[in-house]
């Protein structure tokens, strides 16, 4: 078994693809690129493709990762080149590395996500107002948000899952950058952080028209922040 880890970005127009569609797009591109996929056994064989984390529909990302099992060893540089040519417009292949046997699964190690949000302002605000709103909200010990799940609405505290938060403004928008928890220990969604900042910091912005950018996914090891490529 030969496994490769692929770092990729997802922009317009493919930011609208669902997780499943993204998986299919990869599978088909691999076939077009004539990279030999490894398949599961059974009546309906499917390729073994595992993403680091699902990306919500509509989010642009510069730091996505996927592990793919190949039926034969292929030079990672070649995988990168051939795959980039075969991917639909909007996907960028940024790096490919061989995954040594015994390496932990991507999904199990990724635990941080970094986002940048751009939210149109509803009234002119200066940097000082934004800074004050951020420190007001960060002073709160807990941020309660409601989530709709299979068993109805539940309330969760997302404050412990927020590790960094900065705010600034452009001409007509608020820019928020954050590092939050993701993965098996629980996910904090960027919209939830925005919601909490607006609520506790008393900011009024056009949340309906927020643009979200995922800057990257990381593996936090103590104080250190590594990318999934670094840990290989």
């Amino acid at each position, binding site marked *: 078994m030969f496994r490769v880890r692929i770092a990729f970005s997802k922009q317009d127009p*493919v930011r*609208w693809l669902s997780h499943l569609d993204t998986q299919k*797009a990869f599978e*088909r591109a691999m076939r077009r690129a004539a990279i030999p996929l490894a398949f599961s056994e059974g009546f*309906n064989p499917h390729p073994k493709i595992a993403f680091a984390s699902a990306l919500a529909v509509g989010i642009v990302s510069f730091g996505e990762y996927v592990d793919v099992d190949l039926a034969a060893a292929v030079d990672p540089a070649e995988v990168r080149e051939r795959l980039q040519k075969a991917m*639909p417009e909007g996907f960028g292949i940024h790096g490919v590395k061989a995954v040594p046997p015994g390496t932990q699964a991507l999904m199990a190690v990724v635990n941080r996500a970094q986002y940048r949000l751009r939210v149109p302002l509803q009234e002119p605000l200066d940097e000082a107002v934004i800074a004050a709103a951020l420190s007001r909200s960060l002073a709160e010990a807990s941020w309660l948000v409601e989530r709709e799940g299979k068993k109805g609405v539940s309330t969760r505290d997302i404050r412990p899952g927020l590790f960094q938060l900065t705010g600034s403004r452009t001409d007509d928008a608020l820019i928020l950058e954050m590092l939050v928890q993701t993965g098996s220990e629980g996910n904090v969604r960027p919209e939830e952080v925005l919601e909490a900042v607006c609520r506790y910091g008393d900011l009024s912005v056009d949340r309906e028209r927020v643009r979200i950018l995922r800057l990257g996914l990381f593996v936090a090891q103590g104080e250190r922040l590594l990318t999934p490529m670094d840990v290989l």
Partner: protein
Amino acid sequence: MSPICDISQILEDELLRKVTKPTRYTGGEHNQVKKDWSGVDVAMAFAFPDVYEVGMSHLGLRILYHLINEQPRMVMERVFAPWPDMEKAMRSRGVPLFSLESRRPLTDFDVVGFTLQYEMSYSNILNMLDLAGISLFAEERLYGDPLIMAGGPCAVNPEPLAPFMDLILLGEGEELLPRVLQAIADFKRDAGLGAIAGGAAAAGDDLAERRDRSRREALLLHLATIPGVYVPALYRSEYAADGCFLGTTPIREGVPAKVKKQIVADLDKAYFPTTSLVPFMDVVHDRVMLEVLRGCSRACRFCQAGSIYRPVRERSPETLKRQAEALVKATGYDEIALTSLSTADYTCVEPLIKELIATHAEQKVGLSLPSLRVDAFSVDLAKEVQKVRKTGLTFAPEAGTQRLRDVINKGVTESDLMETVESAFSNGWTSLKLYFMIGLPTETEEDLEGIARLAEQVVYKGTAILREKGMNKSVRVTVSTSSFVPKAQTPFQWEPQAPMADLEEKQAFLKKRLRDRRISYSWHDARISFLEAVFAKGDRRLAQVLHRAWQKGCVFDGWSEFFRYETWLEAFQECGVDPADYAYRAIGYDDPLPWDHLDFGVDRRYLIREHKKALAAALTRDCRADQCAGCGVCPTLGVSIDLRGGDHVPSPDRL
């Protein structure tokens, strides 16, 4: 800001996040063709009046899209019916209907061409025109407006759409469509006017408007001289005082009294793309589609496709293998479907399947056979295909008794079916689907009982075989019935449809009768079938009803969650049109028909002969294996049956 940027911006910033399945509207699929419009003489939007995932499954779109875009000075972009959530969002933001590729409003195109696949999509056509801000009625459109075109199987009788369409193409589009687009481009150039679209008269400018109107008329008059092009506005339908239809005739010099459909003579040489769009979201048929042959000569008497795609023309296995390889490489699909009206009839089917499997199995690319006959040979083929990926099996005996199967000329016997089923169960299938039609001409209770009896026999047979093999899995048989809809250009075009109440009673009978746990029964809504019959046999008077129904909110009529039967009935009533007149009238052989001015090559005398033979339950043989049945298509259209040999000849025990 230009409207194109505007549309794109509003889409990306506001609309896409609000709607279900945004990839229906984004475009950008692999192999999409995005052309620079500055080098283009004529631009056409291919409009599919249903949602993206249905439209993208259509082979005709895949062929014509690449064919037109390969012409250096032509461009074709796509547009589908937006789902109601998107439509609402677009209307509230004032976003006009736009193409997927360049996100241009449809008014930027010279031609908007609708494909007519089923009658129940007609209301979506009106809705799409309205969303695009294009006048619905052809007579209200000016030279600057796009030409609204239609083609496809329902063009066999496009009369209910006549007032909305500028031109209708009859027959296969591979050769005809580029010819028509070229004629439009030439006309534009000779008129020295640049784009047809965008040159409209300023509002209120009477003289300019009149000039625009006459220029548009001159263009249409010119197009009407191209064989296969039907311009409805150049014909008038007449009716007697009592409302009886009298006929449709040209109103201008030089317009043909009968428009003759066009077909390609040599399918092997016909254009077929070696690339194909690869949708992101799941679409109904998401795979490589290889068209192995066109037409069918089994002459089932209810089947419109069987009439209008004659004669049978095959592609050579060499061509098909080459196309399969190129398409898999270009798309990355993991499945190849061999499509046609009856794929097991392809004379080279066995060697073709074996070779395709051998070539593509390593990459786990499977095969599928969407249309199979009821015979053991078909099961053998399916078994071959199954080696790569499991597939379901569906057979269509169509009717429950031998007598009725003879009436419709479905050359299937009960022993065929039992043999097929036996072979399927012995080869490892445990569930099967069986398709039947109810409401066929001359149907009696015995025929319905026959459906139930056949289903039971299949279950018994399957259970016995599974038991013998020591499997403790239980057999599943799905029986599905649709209601017979009489269609133009078939031997049953003179037949009335069974009354809706009867159809519902028949469904209730089967529901009660098919009580075995191992059998599940599904049926089509009889009210939808009724409207299909009305529009399949309708004339121009139905256009106002369609318009009224759309005004009252009817869209996506083929989707049960949106179908509003009561609203349709109100529309009929308000227009003073009785739908029953169309669906339930038995037509005399000498009565003029609303599609008489459209020549599909099928001889009326042949259809009458076939109808009489049907009532006598007499069979007609397959014209490939036996003698010509005299349908008239080959001599009229100047083509002939084209088979590519191989050692498989149509099963002699068919009749």
